[in-house]
């Protein structure tokens, strides 16, 4: 079981890092957003609005979630392309179990995202120093969230038939989930109607969890409610992606 997962995982990670410029640009973009946009905005926003943090610190931690979201979502694009090119059929012809392929692809999406977030995480640690256990806990939570996002991305990659539509759906999902969350701005600054959506958005929970974990002391209680919400999201999204993946790769929709 482990061997099949390892083989697919290694291949996915290897091919991801071949796209050096794409990955580098995405990280560079968020890096610049943090050091220029967030720095400038932090001069104009009162820290009392955002729980005592400067906007720069607030944004730097939120950018981790944005990065994780974008990178892990990329696995859906890979799945889509693999389906279109016939590579998915090829993988299914190999002596690797379907469940191994599903698990490996979700894990690869999350692993790639965590690799990708490390430069931004270093920047965030400079701006918001924290303890090692809290940093590890934050990364673990981001990884868990990335597994869920990979599940959504795989679902879209398998459900949509045209590349333009696939990109459009991806953009819409990220627009809704990221903009209706506390990833870029605090809930207190939002209009009432937007707050309703924000409160049920899993991205809000992961953003808040990462901020709470980063700022909390070692002996403080973990933000269990937020973490539970992230776990629930990952479980649901992972299940949805796996279910659809198994349906499609078992020949239901393949032609």
């Amino acid at each position: 079981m482990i061997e099949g997962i390892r083989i697919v995982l290694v291949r996915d990670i290897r091919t991801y890092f071949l796209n050096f410029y794409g990955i580098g640009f995405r990280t560079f973009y968020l890096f610049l957003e943090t050091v220029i946009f967030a720095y400038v905005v932090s001069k104009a926003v009162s820290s009392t609005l955002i729980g005592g943090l400067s906007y720069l610190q607030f944004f730097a931690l939120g950018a981790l979630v944005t990065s994780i979201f974008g990178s892990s979502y990329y696995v859906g694009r890979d799945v889509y392309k693999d389906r279109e090119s016939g590579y998915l059929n090829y993988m299914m012809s190999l002596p690797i179990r379907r469940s191994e392929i599903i698990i490996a692809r979700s894990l690869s999406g999350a692993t790639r995202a965590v690799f990708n977030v490390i430069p931004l995480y270093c920047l965030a640690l400079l701006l918001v120093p924290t303890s090692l256990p809290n940093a590890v806990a934050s990364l673990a939570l981001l990884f868990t969230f990335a597994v869920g996002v990979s599940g959504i991305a795989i679902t879209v990659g398998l459900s949509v038939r045209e590349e333009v539509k696939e990109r459009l759906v991806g953009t819409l999902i990220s627009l809704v989930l990221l903009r209706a969350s506390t990833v870029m701005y605090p809930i207190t600054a939002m209009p009432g109607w937007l707050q309703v959506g924000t409160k049920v958005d899993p991205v809000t929970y992961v953003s808040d969890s990462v901020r709470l974990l980063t700022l909390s002391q070692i002996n403080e209680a973990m933000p269990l409610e937020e973490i539970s919400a992230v776990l629930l999201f990952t479980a649901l999204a992972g299940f949805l992606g796996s279910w659809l993946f198994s349906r499609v790769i078992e020949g239901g929709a393949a032609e």
Partner: protein
Amino acid sequence: MRLISLIKFEGLTKRFKSTEAVSELRLTIEDKEIFGLLGPNGAGKTTTLLMLCSIMKPTKGTIILNGINIVQNPDEGRRNLGIAFQEPVLDSRLTVEQNLEFHAEACRLTRTERRERIDAILGYLDMSNSRKQKVGSLSGGMKKKIENAKIFIQRPPIAIFDEPTAYLDVPSRHRVWKEIENLKQGGSTVILATNMMDEAERLANRLGILTKGKLVAMGTTGYLKDSIPQGDVIDLQVTGDPTPVAQIIRQIERVREVVIVPQTNRLRIYLAQAELRLPEIMETLIGKGTRVESIAVREPSLDDVFLHYAGEAL
């Protein structure tokens, strides 16, 4: 102990909406034979192979491999199968070697086996210099060779090739044929889907002809040649539409069958003692105002068998 790869298709059917791509296929493939699957484009060959590899689920029917229903136990089937697809399925971002490494590793070959077999096959296929090249930069023929190489490295009990020599130059075709024969010598059962009659005739022990999802003929090359109307073949090329000419010739006594070669103005006439009947045929055609461009008399080939059984579907 080596696996005995007896494969039975029992009433295998695949339906896509209103189209039946494969219909009630009943077929047994014996251990260590090369079985050729012939058929025009869209006959259901690839769909059959995809079901055999458990990539596609049949609508009805089963596939039994050594007594195990692999529709219900797909993992069991995949452990014993390897397929080289019609269109090469390679990761264009990876090198030739990395693609082959991935396949070999997925098939659980040891590191030593992988290295030895990859070196050997790249050398044999004259691709040693391309091993570090990214697949995306290769020509169609080279990609096809790598696609086949995956199975030559894997050496599975059941090796499946879908149009293995499409896009290949003549020397490469012969190398691929030789390697397929080596697989059989090594104990593999080979299933070969092809449109190339010379390939089927050279490699296959038995042939099955699929048209419109149905198996319409099966047997050895000799058996199939004997199964079409006996005698000689006249190849006739006319000016203009060959359909009315075919109708005229069908009226001539002792003509057993007339087939129009699809998309051409050529006809194949099956009859006994062609040399004796030829003057009468020519006389009739000239009398009807038909202009004959060329004419040749020969013995029937596998191509004729294919046209006989698949002609209507072309």
